């Protein structure tokens, strides 16, 4: 399967350690994050992360499911770039 750039949009609770957990989940599998943007949303207790990763669809599917399992992750969506 071909690797393509996937853009993950994560809405997470704005708490310390959340970014590290999410980035760790991706980098721990040996995938390189190409772009990472983190910023507040209108609701100050929620942050939005936009993460671009080069990986296969299958890997991204797994990563999304595992991200959704995280205690501080509210929502994850993705699209191929």
């Amino acid at each position, binding site marked *: 399967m071909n690797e393509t750039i996937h853009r993950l949009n994560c809405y997470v609770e704005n708490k310390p350690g959340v970014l590290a957990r999410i980035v760790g989940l991706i980098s721990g599998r040996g995938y390189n994050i190409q772009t990472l943007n983190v910023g507040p949303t209108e609701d100050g207790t929620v942050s939005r992360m936009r993460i671009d990763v080069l990986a296969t669809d299958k890997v991204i599917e797994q990563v999304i499911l595992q991200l959704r399992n*995280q205690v*501080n992750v509210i929502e994850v969506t993705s699209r191929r770039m």
Partner: protein
Amino acid sequence: MNKNEKRTGAKALVESLEKAGTEVLFGYPGGTVLDIFNCLPEAKFQFVLGRHEQGSAHMADGYARATGKPGVCLVTSGPGATNTITGLATANVDGIPMVVITGQVPLSLIGTDAFQEADTTGIARGVSKHCFLVKSADEIPETVAEAFYIATHGKPGPVVIDIPKNCQQALTSAQYPERVSLRAYHPESTATTAQINRLAKLINEAKRPVLYAGGGVIAAGAAKDLAALAHRAHIPVATTLMGLGSFDEHDELALGLSGMHGSAASNWAIHESDLIIALGVRFSDRVTAKISEYAKRAKLVHVDCDPASINKNVHADLGIVADVKDVLTTVLSRIKQSDHTEWLHHIAEWKRLKPMTYKPLHKEVIMPQSVIEAIDKATKGEAILVTDVGQHQMWAAQYFRHNRPRHFLSSGGMGTMGFGIPAAIGAAFARPEASVVAVCGDGGAQMTFEEVVVAVEHKLPVTFVVINNECLGMVRQWQELFYSKRYAGSILSPKGRCKNERLEDDLDYGYLPDFTKLAEAHGAKAYRVIDPAKLEATIKKAVASRKTSLVEVIVEPRANVYPMIPGGKSVTEMVFG
């Protein structure tokens, strides 16, 4: 306590642990948890001092595996915390609920390379379900409640709470919450009616169905429901290592262990099956062998509480994210009484042709497999059997007739050597009336032997059986089969172990301690067995004594674990030795 009355964060922590239902706290003191230890004499739970933080973590794990309740562990910062990492990883991959509290240097010193400072949440993140770093005493009660909630909801797992020393000393009036509500974590999920109907239809129409049960069946408390479905629909049951005990192996529908060292009947049934109903499993590489060949004739139904485990390793034709017990109870009424006599005849033939068996290599030398059979007989199959990791673990899986849940405790996913001794102690605290037998190899026993003294101190009726084959058996077996018999680093004593002589001239080959003397030095009663005729009686005597005891069994060192599916091969290439 008056609602506005203040007490220290440490006192609030102990109160919160009591409210969370803690009965036993395992741990080890140190500088950054002294305020918490100062509150322990008044605590309503028992504190158990391990002798190494890894031991304390595995004790909490063993307690959790034996009961289903979270094991709780308290250690200091820095090395105390890092020593629990193996314990966290072991519990994490097997889905065992634990709450581990670590001390941390005061907030003002974090990041200064303070004495015994380590970035505990940073280090533990990858091997735990969740980590908390507490920032004020006011957060402590709520954090404890959330930690217990997270540890036990969804796929269970270990949760770390890192508490800086100044937060333990600060005063707070914060109360333990009545209920926990987490904004982003809602793991509960139920099967839809359509999924249940489809599952029922698949089961009712299958010709060669197999139920495939894992640790999730035990975690969900669904063993009785599994048996009910198996009997009504007349379906044989294969189990994973973590699933052993979820189905009584005395039952004619039992296929036993599946996977790399599983029974021929179990692996071949899955290979020939037209419907696999996988319950609470994660399709580990140790089970599927060559993934492209796994169960390729079958429709596969996968029921699990963890959405990330479905379609992870194998494709599921029907994936159901739900509690296994709920699914089993709901589907049962839609299942027709079936008769799969022909399919079961076929399986019985495999069982007859390739039973789980071994041949003695020498009639005066004990075969390691017979040690497990002797434990089964000596305890009438009622023991809580705890294992370490290696050959003996596989023999314990193969040759004990597992018959009830939470009675086979073993490090499955992580394969942690050193797990057996402390986990058995944790199980003995959880089930004081039970007979706990820990089976260890001579390698793993040396990794955590210091914990034996804890069993002695608390007069626990644990029998440690050290199967001594003078080598790191599983490593030796792989070197024999796949590395041209070059036994680098795996031979612990070259010869003479049968009489347990100390060989002055052979020290460069390695040296094993005298396990009986080691046990006696720790205050345990010790036995050594060399004669096959005395094996069962000695184990019986040790278990019946209800005292902490160790039985060192000198066994045939060349014995290998069979059957075996070599790495990367499929079930059709099973090796029988």
